[in-house]
């Protein structure tokens, strides 16, 4: 029998506010453990939660960017459970009336547009971290993360494959980074994802029993876990067994899921210490006005306005900073495709190579455009331009200065090139003979010799023309 895979994702995203959700402690990481804690985030007697207004703004912005309806009135509740990383023994979250509902993210599996529904998006506080030191009989608790604001984004069970889940996650990440509410780094824990997955016979309308998978450290892990779980569940069903509702743990090293715990009923109760969150239309519209053009729309515009191929448009718009950089370049240079080539090939590879973020680029988009103009004018060759570009990247100097300082101006003087070409012809009689015998490859060798002679500065088109004229 063929089975259809049903996938829903629960994604937790840390918001980039400066302070925690219910107190004034910094959200900064990497300091000494427990250095950003106060009576409120430590759950001390009589401490009360104070709502951080920025968290509401960030969360509402995320909700709007994900096409959700924003509740005019939402509330906070407590999810009660015991764990050492949870100081109050309850997590303040939104259960009964969440901030946002009924959104969607558009994905394009196999070129077909598909909407993945978002059931709920709500605000909550993060828990701390337990540190288990190898070989020690105890665990340590670091509560710096306790109280860092999160939004939880619960999708509808609309995804049908690991690929779709991967696309959904990617788009979610791109959108949230675009609107600058989160940096969405799964490897660093600022984006966490749990999978709900079940199988049903193809054509069936009813859902099968779902399994939740936790401990996914990367997008790749999400994809692998889904693929593994599809296979595991299929095998059980095909051998006449049934799936039990449970939570399983992804083991990245071994590449499989293992039983973690059975179904649990959470104890929720209203949070009595907080007023409801009221978002009236004027505030909502003010927040909406801060949302920039989102990646899908921008991609479509790039394809239309700059005639970019879909691939180029999607690579460049995947990052807001990159897309902003690109658009700035295009203002100063006439051919958007040429800019796209430089951005996608030279810029991306040097960023990958150095591990540097595009945020900290030393040169400006205008300078890159200036360099492209220099190529067009014949001031430098395309080959030399690559060196100039590297120099710009490292020093932030303008291309004009670099070319001047290093004497990289292209040799386009007819007489000078002719004399160099003649010298090369004289010094390489064998290649000349080969060329005359019909070996066209020999021409390339001779061009190379001229380039060597001129340290790459010879105008390549002119060299070609002159050589052919002299040889014939």
């Amino acid at each position, binding site marked *: 029998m063929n089975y259809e895979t049903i996938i829903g994702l629960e994604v937790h995203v840390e918001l980039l506010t400066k302070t925690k959700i219910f107190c004034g402690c910094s959200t900064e990481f990497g300091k000494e453990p427990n250095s950003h804690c106060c*009576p409120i985030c430590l759950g001390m*007697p009589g401490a009360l939660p104070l709502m951080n207004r920025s968290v509401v703004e960030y969360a509402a912005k995320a909700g709007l960017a994900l096409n959700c309806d924003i509740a005019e009135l939402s509330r906070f509740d*407590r999810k009660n459970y015991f764990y*050492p990383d949870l*100081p109050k*023994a309850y997590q303040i979250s939104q259960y009964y009336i969440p901030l946002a509902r009924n959104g969607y993210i558009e994905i394009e599996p196999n070129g077909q547009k598909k909407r993945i529904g978002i059931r709920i998006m709500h605000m909550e506080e993060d828990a701390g971290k337990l540190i288990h030191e190898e070989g020690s009989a105890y665990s340590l608790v670091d509560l710096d993360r306790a109280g860092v604001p999160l939004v939880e984004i619960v999708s509808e069970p609309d995804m049908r494959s690991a690929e779709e889940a991967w696309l959904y996650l990617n788009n979610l990440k791109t959108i949230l980074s675009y609107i600058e509410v989160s940096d969405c780094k799964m490897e660093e824990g600022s984006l966490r994802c749990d999978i709900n997955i079940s199988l049903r016979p193809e054509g069936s309308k009813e859902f099968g029993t779902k399994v939740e998978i936790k401990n996914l450290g990367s997008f790749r892990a999400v994809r692998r876990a889904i693929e593994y779980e599809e296979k595991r569940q299929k095998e059980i069903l095909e051998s006449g067994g049934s799936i039990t509702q449970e939570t399983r743990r992804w083991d990245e090293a071994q590449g499989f899921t293992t039983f973690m715990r059975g179904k649990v*009923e959470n104890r929720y*109760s209203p949070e009595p*210490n907080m007023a409801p969150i009221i978002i009236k239309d004027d505030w909502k519209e003010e927040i909406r006005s801060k949302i920039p053009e989102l990646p899908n729309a921008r991609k479509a515009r790039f394809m239309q306005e700059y005639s970019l191929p879909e691939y180029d448009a999607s690579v460049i718009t995947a990052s807001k900073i990159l897309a902003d950089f690109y658009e700035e370049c295009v203002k100063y240079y006439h051919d958007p495709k040429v800019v796209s080539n430089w951005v996608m090939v030279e810029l991306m590879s040097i960023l990958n190579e150095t591990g540097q973020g595009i945020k900290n680029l030393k040169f400006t988009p205008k300078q890159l455009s200036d360099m492209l103009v220099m190529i067009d004018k014949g001031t430098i060759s395309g080959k030399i331009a690559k060196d100039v570009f590297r120099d710009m990247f490292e020093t932030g100097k303008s291309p004009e200065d670099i070319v001047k300082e290093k004497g990289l101006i292209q040799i386009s003087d007819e007489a000078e090139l002719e004399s160099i070409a003649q010298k090369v012809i004289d010094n390489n009689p064998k290649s000349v003979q080969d060329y005359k015998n019909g070996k066209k490859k020999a021409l390339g060798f001779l061009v190379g010799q001229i380039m060597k002679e001129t340290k790459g500065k010879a105008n390549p088109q002119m060299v070609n023309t002159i050589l052919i004229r002299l040889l014939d």
Partner: protein
Amino acid sequence: MKLHELTINKANELLKKKEIKSEELTSALFNRIDSFDGKIKAYVTLDKDRALEAARLADKKADFTQPLTGIPMAVKDNICTKDLKTTCCSKMLENFVPPYDATVISKLKDTNAVILGKTNMDEFAMGSSTESSFFQVTKNPWNLECVPGGSSGGSAAAVAADESLYALGSDTGGSIRQPAAYCGVVGLKPTYGRVSRFGVAALASTMDAIGPITKDVTDCAIVLSAIAGIDSFDPTSSDIPLSDYLKCLHDELNGIKIGIPKEFLDNDVIDKDVKDAFLNAAKIYENLGCICEEISLANAEYALWAYHITVAAESSSELGQYDGIRYGHRATKYEDLKDLYKKSRGEGFGTEVKRRIILGTYLSDAQNYDKYYLKAQKIRTLIKKDFENAFNKYDLLITPTVPTTAFKIGEKIDDPLKMYMNDLYTTPVNLAGLPAISIPCGFSDGLPIGLQIIGKAFDEASILRAAYAFEQNTNYHEKRIKWEEGFSDEL
């Protein structure tokens, strides 16, 4: 008059006139505590050195325009005091020293108040007799065989025994008013949101209120003025402006309409003496020109149960933070994490606390939430409506504070249902979030009887005015305790 017998108002006058010094007054109180508290056991922690230091500072500044400057006072032990043990009278927090002050404490410290120490209470404020304290049983100063009431029993007993000029208490279902009634002092539960709860260990966050226990109504108004008001650290504190609580004491009472809920008088739990004293109080108000009429609070009979379901459910969540991980009692021997929780909480909490946590966890789990907690909240809405209807016609309601006078120590501690009946008249007020005061209105077999005056939300002014008028026309608050042998007033 002896220094420890002073009211805040009188002491402030003397301080202003430089007839006494705060240090002298504070020392007198510590002497009183030294000779009396061995028997009363109102205090669990004394802070003599810092208290005297604060007194000397007040003397040095010599600015007594704020009436609480240099006045010695006591704090219920669930109100956090920086660098001073705050135990909630539980083994769980036996050695807990908060690194912060509750907002009410910061406000008092700003006026240079003198904190004598922390007072005994029922463990985590769960109780009506102060017997569930982990440390000690406080005695009713009027009769040492009787309880002082609770849960703010230590605070009420300290004020009644002249071991403090005033005290702070907390009231979730009557915990200020009932001990005030039992100890013959004045106790005010302000409107929910009138006084900041920041830094006060929660019992039930939707009902907890912090308020003063004083020797008379004027002092009550003084303390309320000092501790009330919006607080950026308590999101449920209200920005409704404060009244001039001292000035309003002298406003005319003539023509005020007072409702008397008949359900509170026609039942089989009320003592005859309490009922008589109450009816006499109603007559006094009529003589003062008030219009007293019987009214019905039809849903009040369900209040006690709605209250106990709410408190149990909320407190089971509030008390989760006492898990032995970051502070508080931690078991020394345990097998694993679960065992650590079980043993630390099992050892750290007393019987009544465990009873309520278990009950509350049951009442608020996914299966029972709608059946119990939600239903209790619906009853709560009905009770609120009853009060609203009553306050459409009446300015104030009066009831006895408690159906009986103080009972014997040990009499009800093993019978929680009987114990809960103590709160019959006080809990509806907390469910509705209203302000109410208890003032002395009579005696039965040498034990004080309390009169409860309930007001509209944020109308503490009307309550205080009515209470003050009553006090001016009676002398119950002036009656002194006849100390048994073994107490020495002379030093």
